[in-house]
């Protein structure tokens, strides 16, 4: 019997075929959407503040002070801001009167006193629970033996308001970023005012993240000063939090230094990544201020800071002249030259027991001694972390000397700048032959090599090369 098709209810075979394909198409689309919902979707993303260290629901701001409500949830604005300079009719501790930006304490007082230090301090901190902020050598370098400075306040306490050294962390020669100088420098720039907290030159308090410096668990603590926007937390976003703001975008020649006591893992997170794709572009960050244009007065030094031209300096994008005797993982010989360093490879951001905020640990190892002045042979402790000394090049020579690099073409060194003649021109005392065992007085590295030094700055016979 011939089947009777009802156009309204039953499709003819041709239609059925079409509908079958439509169904398949719909099923495919819906399935794809469902699977995308499972696998393609971005994780739920909080705003900048809720993603920040201060706004973190686990370790965010939590004020513990007499008169302050204990039941305010962690990360709440009121832990830092008192909307009416009082709560429940009275001002909680610290009782200091109304603070600018409705902060519970004076926004900034001096080098070691200000709002940020009310919490970023171990002794007397208002944060509950108290916490430590170790320096970069500890956190990125992995040198966990140095537990002083233990806090941000401690890191800034190597000098006082006048810029004079203060005995701290067993050092009487340490240095810190001079906060009042920073405040003076940024006032009137990039939306900052004379009321701005100098810490906010580098950190957006509503965005800055904790960085565990662990592979797979990273945070991004700094914001580029020149992008500062006083009215928009998002406009002044973090720096380094996206791939385009990592140092491998500044240069393809970055070589990460070793992590402490390791030759297989690298800064800043102990991973095997070496190209800087996991490191904030600190060159762009630091040279926002420390560049060839800005004049920055240093109370500590009593003069303007030297300018930095990282696009040309040898530790920047400028190349070694002909050869280099580098300690691994840096190249040695005549090939692979042109590595570019990050500022943080040598400098602490906040403070250090050494002068010029020089790190205590560099390229996988601790400096053999402290560096307490600009003009001292102790700079060898830093240089030696990456540059072969004589003994490393030639076992028959002295350690901690750089005769070969400057006077002898042997081994990895093929571009000595000085013939070993007329020793007394540069070396004032001592004697012996013109070889690597001579006991001539050692030159001070910083006689010739420092940020901003020019080819004619060598204090004896000038060279024709860049000296930094």
């Amino acid at each position, binding site marked *: 019997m011939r089947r009777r098709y009802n156009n309204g209810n039953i499709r003819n075979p041709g239609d059925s075929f079409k509908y079958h394909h439509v169904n398949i198409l719909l099923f495919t689309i819906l399935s794809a959407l469902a699977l995308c919902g499972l696998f393609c979707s971005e994780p739920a993303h*909080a705003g900048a503040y809720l993603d920040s260290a201060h*706004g973190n629901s686990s370790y965010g701001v939590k004020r513990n002070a007499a008169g302050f409500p204990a039941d305010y949830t962690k990360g709440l604005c009121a832990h830092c801001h008192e909307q009416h300079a009082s709560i429940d009719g009275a001002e909680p501790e610290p009782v200091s009167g109304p603070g600018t*930006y409705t902060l519970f304490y004076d926004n900034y007082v001096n080098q070691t006193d200000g709002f940020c230090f009310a919490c970023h301090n171990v002794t007397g901190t208002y944060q509950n629970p108290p916490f430590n902020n170790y320096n970069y050598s500890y956190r990125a370098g992995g040198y966990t033996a140095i537990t002083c400075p233990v806090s941000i306040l401690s890191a800034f306490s190597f000098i006082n308001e006048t810029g004079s050294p203060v005995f701290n962390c067993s050092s009487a020669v340490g240095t810190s970023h001079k906060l009042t100088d920073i405040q003076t420098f940024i006032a009137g720039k990039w939306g900052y005012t004379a009321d701005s907290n100098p810490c906010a030159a580098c950190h957006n308090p509503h965005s800055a993240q904790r960085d565990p410096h662990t592979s797979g668990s990273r945070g991004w603590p700094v914001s580029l000063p020149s992008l500062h926007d006083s009215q928009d937390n*998002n406009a002044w976003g973090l720096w380094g939090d996206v791939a385009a703001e990592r140092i491998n975008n500044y240069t393809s020649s970055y070589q990460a230094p070793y992590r402490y006591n390791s030759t297989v893992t690298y800064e800043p997170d102990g991973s095997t990544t070496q190209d800087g794709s996991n490191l904030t572009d600190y060159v762009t960050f630091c040279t926002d201020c420390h560049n060839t244009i800005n004049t920055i007065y240093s109370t500590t030094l009593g003069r303007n800071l030297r300018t930095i031209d990282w696009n040309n300096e040898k530790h920047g994008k400028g190349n070694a002249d002909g050869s280099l005797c580098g300690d691994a993982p840096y190249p040695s010989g005549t090939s692979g030259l042109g590595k570019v360093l990050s500022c943080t490879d040598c400098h602490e951001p906040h403070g250090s027991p050494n002068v010029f905020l020089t790190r205590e640990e560099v390229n996988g190892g601790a400096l053999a001694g402290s560096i307490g002045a600009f003009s001292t042979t102790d700079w060898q402790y830093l240089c030696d972390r990456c540059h072969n000394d004589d003994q490393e090049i030639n076992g028959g020579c002295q350690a901690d000397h750089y005769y070969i690099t400057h006077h002898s073409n042997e081994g990895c060194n093929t571009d000595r700048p000085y013939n070993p003649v007329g020793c007394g021109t540069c070396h004032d005392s001592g004697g012996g032959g013109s070889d690597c065992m001579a006991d001539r007085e050692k030159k001070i590295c910083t006689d010739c090599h420092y940020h901003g030094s020019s080819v004619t700055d060598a204090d004896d016979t000038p060279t024709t090369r860049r000296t930094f």
Partner: protein
Amino acid sequence: MTRLKRYIVLAVIVMLIAVFSAEVPAVITGQCSDCHTMHNSQNGVAMVSYVFGSETTSAKDYLLVGTCLGCHAQGGSSMVANINGNPTPQVYHIDATGDLAGGNFAYILGTKGSGASDAKGHNVIDFGKTEDTLTSPPGHHDPDGIGVNITCAGLTGCHGARKSGSGIYGSHHRNVDGKLTTADQPYNSYRFLPGVKGLEDADWEKTKSVSDHNEYYGANTPMTYSGNCNICHNPQGIITSNNTMSGFCGTCHRNFHVTDAIGGTSSPFTRHPTDIILPGGGEYAGYNGGGNPYSLVARVARTTVPDVPGDTVYPGTDVVMCLSCHAAHATDYPDMMRWNYKSTTLSTAISGCNVCHTSKN
């Protein structure tokens, strides 16, 4: 029926619906005895019948048959009660559908909401639950002369003339509704708040939406005290001299308002400013999301009292005020906040802040 007739009938129906469906408050009308009694006695029975709690039915001032709370705090299930045919706004009720614009004192007593707490509102002494934490209005000068003896009206109240022996007297009879821009007497001031300008929502926000709400008057600069008592004190009593809602709050909470105590007229402020223009740039430009719809959580005031409620906020023009964060009477949240600032979920706790501070979420 012709088509024309059908249109006429339809138009009439629409007009009738419009006229009778809305609760339109107006000057008190009707029988005098609805509100007054000559002898407080009728057949030996006291005629004072609208009282609250332990208030007695003894004769009242101005021959009234009730008290403020007796009429406006009946504790019933509706936020607008019908008293002798007059829709009467309730400041104390258990209506589960919401609260009127000023909030609900029931949160303080715990008869509604998450539990009793002094911190949830202004502790009007007539409710019988006095303030246990504060000893005076925070931010007031000291001595303040108020203590915690806050009343609905009168010298230590908010509504009506704020001087001895006056209060709300006569205001109901002369009440001016809607847009109030004169504000030189309580009756022609916003909600009988002396000196305050604004646009009163017809049903006190029983119904409310982005385009159905009160409008508050604000200024682009707070008052400055600088030793000048006259910013609040004048022969007519305590009256804010700048006619704003925030200025009115400042008559008790002075240091939370005046330029002398908030750090001036521009950032950085030392206290959260009021009667300051919401900045037009930065994160504030994104007030409450795209298109800047009016937020009932973080409200703004206008520098010109509008004719009708606005559904849009204009950063750069509109004004931050006390009622941006707080309700006037009480809320279910500590400090009379409009949102749960004490939520254990941080995103909820700062949700109201984020209406203006859009990039700090």
